[in-house]
């Protein structure tokens, strides 16, 4: 594989950039692989990469219905954080933070990881107490957390509404300074390029239409490009999980829901951090191009539509304007919607299934992008060793029937209440 560097850039510049190698090939599927990963999004690509890199399993196919990086990894709000209270989530995400910090070097691809810090605003004394508890839990797990008072928040984001007569005054906030953002497309492309160079076949425009299961063991898949055999198959299909589960006669603790996000017209650099509103569900950061990147609540009903409705967008942006009044002066550049695999406790599932050789990676709710490297790493381990890694033991499928939920928000089973 051609290494990307300033030297290769200069060399190719002299030749008019005509001789760059393709970043990944377009192979026709073989009849059999050691492992098939269904879903060429961030998690699927990362899984294939870590299977090859950490476990020397490179006879792997990624089967993708559309094109790689065309799903949620290409349409999220790029936030990376590990500000969780529960051990399972905190330790898993912080492991991911280490992978994020080294990702550009590891993949030889600039993913533009920008640890700019995330601030969760608090709007009451009770919320400050809750944040101090969460911050303490984070620090016990080795994650950086700083509790900010009103004045300290004002120094960092003076453009927020600090006037006296607001409905939700800012009392302070919880900051994770090491959190940040990354360029989402580059993450998919970086993993794809490395996985391809180690022998992984990335098969695009190939829809899975069925599974071959015999005697409780997985044998292979049926696709629009023919049947492919494999003894181990991993599902990384986010919002389409329920559709594939139906083909396998499985019912999962997951509902598929619609989430919208939007960006404003680009403006000059204004916001250095990721900021979340504490009296509702709204978050905001500024992209390198200057757009304000914003998101919030689910539309609130089961959906596979990948497009949203205006009432939710209006609701979310009303919260945004309550937090940052200047947003009301901006024009909206783009809005879009994607479908989320909402699990019943808000935490993901990375586990084996009752079918031997079939592995499940789903239930990422809103938080899939930041989990990309840790999810790929632990899922690769789970597939290669046929048992979960310590980091994803808690993310098992039977925790719902045994009662060992990881309910970070304490919301219970109503996935549409966010």
């Amino acid at each position, binding site marked *: 594989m051609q290494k990307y560097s300033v030297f290769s850039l200069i060399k190719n510049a002299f030749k008019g950039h005509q001789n760059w190698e393709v970043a990944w090939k377009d192979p026709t599927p073989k009849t059999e692989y050691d492992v098939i990963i269904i879903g060429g999004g961030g998690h699927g690509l990362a899984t294939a990469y870590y299977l090859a890199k950490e476990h020397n399993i490179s006879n792997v196919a990624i089967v993708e219905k559309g094109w790689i990086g065309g799903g949620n990894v290409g349409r999220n709000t790029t936030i990376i954080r590990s500000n969780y209270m529960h051990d399972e989530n905190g330790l898993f995400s912080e492991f991911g933070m280490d992978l994020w910090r080294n990702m550009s070097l590891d993949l030889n691809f600039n993913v533009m990881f920008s640890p700019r810090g995330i601030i969760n605003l608090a709007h009451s004394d009770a919320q400050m107490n809750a944040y101090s508890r969460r911050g303490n839990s984070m620090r016990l797990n080795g994650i950086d957390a700083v509790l900010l008072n009103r004045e300290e928040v004002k120094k960092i984001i003076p453009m927020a509404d600090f006037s006296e007569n607001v409905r939700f005054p800012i009392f302070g906030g919880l900051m994770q300074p090491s959190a940040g953002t990354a360029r989402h497309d580059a993450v998919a492309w970086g993993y794809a390029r490395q996985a391809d160079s180690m022998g992984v076949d990335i098969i695009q425009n190939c829809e899975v239409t069925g599974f071959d299961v015999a005697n409780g063991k997985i044998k292979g898949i049926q696709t629009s490009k023919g049947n492919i055999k494999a003894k181990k198959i991993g599902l990384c299909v986010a919002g389409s999980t*329920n*559709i594939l589960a*139906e083909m396998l006669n499985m*019912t*999962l*603790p*997951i*509902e*598929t829901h619609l989430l919208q996000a939007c960006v404003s017209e680009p403006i000059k650099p204004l916001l250095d951090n990721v900021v979340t509103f504490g009296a509702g569900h709204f978050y905001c950061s500024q992209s390198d191009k200057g757009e304000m990147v914003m998101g919030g609540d689910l539309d*609130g*009903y*089961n*959906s*596979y*539509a990948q497009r949203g*409705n*205006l*009432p939710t967008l209006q609701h979310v942006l009303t919260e945004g304007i309550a937090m940052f009044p200047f947003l009301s002066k901006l024009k909206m550049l783009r809005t879009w919607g994607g479908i989320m695999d909402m699990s*019943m406790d808000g935490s993901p599932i990375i586990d084996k299934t009752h079918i031997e050789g079939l592995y499940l990676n789903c239930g990422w709710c809103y938080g899939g992008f930041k989990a990309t490297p840790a999810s790929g790493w632990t899922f690769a381990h789970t597939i290669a060793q046929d048992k979960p890694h310590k980091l994803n033991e808690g993310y098992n499928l039977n925790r*719902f*029937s045994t009662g060992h939920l990881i309910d970070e928000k304490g919301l219970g*089973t*109503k996935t*549409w209440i966010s």
Partner: protein
Amino acid sequence: MLHIKCPYCGLRPQTEFSYGGDATVKRPELNKEVSDQDWDNFVYLRKSPRGKHLELWQHISGCRQWIKVERDTLTHEISTTYKANENI
């Protein structure tokens, strides 16, 4: 904007309603032996189909009645609405 036909009030905008989820799940019967699996099925497991979905909504800013709505999850098209106690 979805427009939902409340069986009591007629066609109203989505913003008057709140969502109540899958209407096909059945609570295990009282005073009977209920296995963990039965509870699991009722509380957590959902088909979440792509296509026709029978779901509960409450007309919270209207008559406050719970209703059943048959809606397509891919197109958002609402085909029929029922009173909550109507057998389908």
